[in-house]
């Protein structure tokens, strides 16, 4: 018996597979209206004429997505196991390095989870199948990031303070209201604004500043798990950047009336995101015992060179201008990290990380990285802090700081061109005065005061009696802080443990 030989079917090209498995699975509704299925894509004023014009350059399908994400997780978990088995925590540069990871764990996984929720909303409610599928992938990515961040850092929780109650802390602790309010702000906007806020402004414009130098810093400080997690997440990030870029171009190409709306969102979210990652500036320059590059250098490389000289020249074609307050950010690059870390230093008694005065090696590095500004900050701030330490004390600010109504960072930033004069702006809305750290935050408030008057400001909440009680110890308990979580690093529990782990073992001969 002979079997007729059949030619195998020709394999579909990547383009055909993508079309067949995403766009072609969509259908036009007949017994309900499009507005009933997708009720959230018109109220923001964005006009879309043809959703089929949205294409994912990655041309991902469910099958390809699952295959590569599974492989990424396998690689990460192999590293986590190896690190735990080999007692890798002993090989970190110093215990104080872990402070940067504490802030990361307390602030970032809940943000990832927020991103997961909101992208899954887009995956349901965007009208076009291309946009929905790319959003679905990102939603799953963000959930993966939240989970893998927690898994990655859970090993350190066995050995270091401040990592035991990250989800409660992210809801309550003062400096963590900065990332929390950022995501709350974006998540309470409409789907297109969310896409410009997170997909474009955060992921494409700014996320390199968070992950790339930071994860390279982890690699430099013996933190293999964080480095591996970071690279694993960042490989997804490339897709997220693409979704953001595709999103903004799609809106701009669909209708020219979209331009002013998109520009205003871009102006707003650049500044919101930039203020958020100023925490990263402080961590990069002051909290890593070994540094790869300064904040200033990272800003020049990943923002000025790539974005201002690359991306914004491209977007000029559509009439987009660089973000409204970008010059302020450029002017701040020499002083930003000094100011942020000084805030963290003076309030770390109420935090779940420790700080310390930069040691001689740190100071030499800072002097080289910031020859114009470090000497001034050293004499104005750190020499004084050192004199307090020399007298047997440690300076902590006994008061509560005023917070910016928009970014919620304590008001520690200065006037452009004058790093010794604190910047303070205010607006009056319905008879009440609201204060801001910068022109950027004031401009954001003035556009939507009815939104920002609702801000949950940690300091106001303490004064209103909503944070566990009237004294600092009451508030610390409510925050979930335990003894040894915060304060000065030298002599802290982490520091003492570290010295004990590395003490030479004396053998009797």
């Amino acid at each position, binding site marked *: 018996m002979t079997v007729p030989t059949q030619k195998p079917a020709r394999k579909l*090209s990547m383009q055909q597979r993508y079309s067949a498995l995403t766009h072609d699975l969509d259908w036009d509704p007949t017994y309900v209206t499009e507005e009933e299925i997708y009720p959230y894509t018109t109220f923001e004023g964005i006009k879309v004429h043809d959703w089929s014009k949205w294409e994912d350059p*990655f041309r991902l399908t469910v099958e390809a997505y699952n295959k590569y994400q599974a492989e990424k997780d396998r690689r990460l978990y192999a590293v986590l196991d190896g690190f735990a088995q080999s007692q890798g925590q002993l090989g970190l540069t110093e215990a104080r390095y872990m402070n940067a990871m504490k802030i990361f764990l307390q602030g970032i996984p809940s943000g990832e989870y927020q991103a997961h929720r909101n992208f899954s909303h887009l995956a349901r409610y965007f009208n076009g199948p291309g946009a929905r599928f790319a959003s679905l992938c990102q939603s799953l990515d963000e959930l993966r990031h939240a989970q893998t961040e927690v898994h990655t850092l859970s090993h350190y929780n066995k050995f270091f303070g401040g990592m035991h109650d990250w989800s409660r802390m992210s809801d309550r602790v003062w400096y963590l209201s900065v990332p929390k309010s950022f995501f709350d702000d974006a998540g309470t906007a409409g789907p297109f604004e969310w896409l410009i806020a997170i997909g474009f402004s955060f992921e494409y414009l700014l996320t390199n500043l968070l992950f790339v130098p930071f*994860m390279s810093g982890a*690699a430099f400080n013996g933190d293999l798990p964080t480095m591996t997690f970071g*690279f694993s997440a960042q490989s997804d990030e*490339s897709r997220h950047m693409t979704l953001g870029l595709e999103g903004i171009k799609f809106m701009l190409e669909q209708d020219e009336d979209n331009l002013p709306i998109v520009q205003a969102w871009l102006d707003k979210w650049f500044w919101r995101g930039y203020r958020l990652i100023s925490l990263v500036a402080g961590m990069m320059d002051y909290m890593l015992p070994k540094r790869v590059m300064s904040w200033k250098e990272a800003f020049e490389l990943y923002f000025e060179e790539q974005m201002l000289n*690359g*991306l914004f020249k*491209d977007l000029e074609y559509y009439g987009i201008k660089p973000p409204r307050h970008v010059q302020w950010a450029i002017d701040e690059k020499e002083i930003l990290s000094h100011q942020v870390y000084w805030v963290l230093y003076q309030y770390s008694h109420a935090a779940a990380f420790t700080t310390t005065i930069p040691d001689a090696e740190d100071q030499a590095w800072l002097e080289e990285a910031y020859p114009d500004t470090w000497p001034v900050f050293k004499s104005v701030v750190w020499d004084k802090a050192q004199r307090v330490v020399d007298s047997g004390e440690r300076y902590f600010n006994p008061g509560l700081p005023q917070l910016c109504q928009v970014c919620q960072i304590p008001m520690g930033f200065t006037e452009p061109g004058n790093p010794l004069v604190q910047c303070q702006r205010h607006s009056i809305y319905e008879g009440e005065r609201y204060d801001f750290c910068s022109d950027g935050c004031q401009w954001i408030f003035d556009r939507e005061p009815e939104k920002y008057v609702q801000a949950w400001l940690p300091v106001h909440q303490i004064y209103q009696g909503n944070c566990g009680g009237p004294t600092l110890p009451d508030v610390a308990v409510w925050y979930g802080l335990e003894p040894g979580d915060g304060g000065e690093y030298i002599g802290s529990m982490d520091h003492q443990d570290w010295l004990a782990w590395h003490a030479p073992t004396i053998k009797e001969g």
Partner: protein
Amino acid sequence: MSVEAAPRPVGVDIQENEENRAVVEAIEADNDDLTVRHMPGIIRLTKSGQLVINQASIEERLGRPWETHEFQMAMISYFGEFVEWDDDRIVIAWKH
């Protein structure tokens, strides 16, 4: 003499590991005037104009089949735009 007229740089950051050495070598071979910068764990490749990643060049160096989707495993970040991502090659450039 106008600097404005020069094509703007695009680039990609690649995770440094054994497999990606073949990827980096292939990109270096296929792109003239590539700038290579090494950072801990990262290789950063930048180039003016457009950057091309060819499946055939990578397969030749790896000695096994390599589909372009796999580039997602290698890449940490990029700047520019994926103007093409097909079975046989990936191209990063600015559209405008």
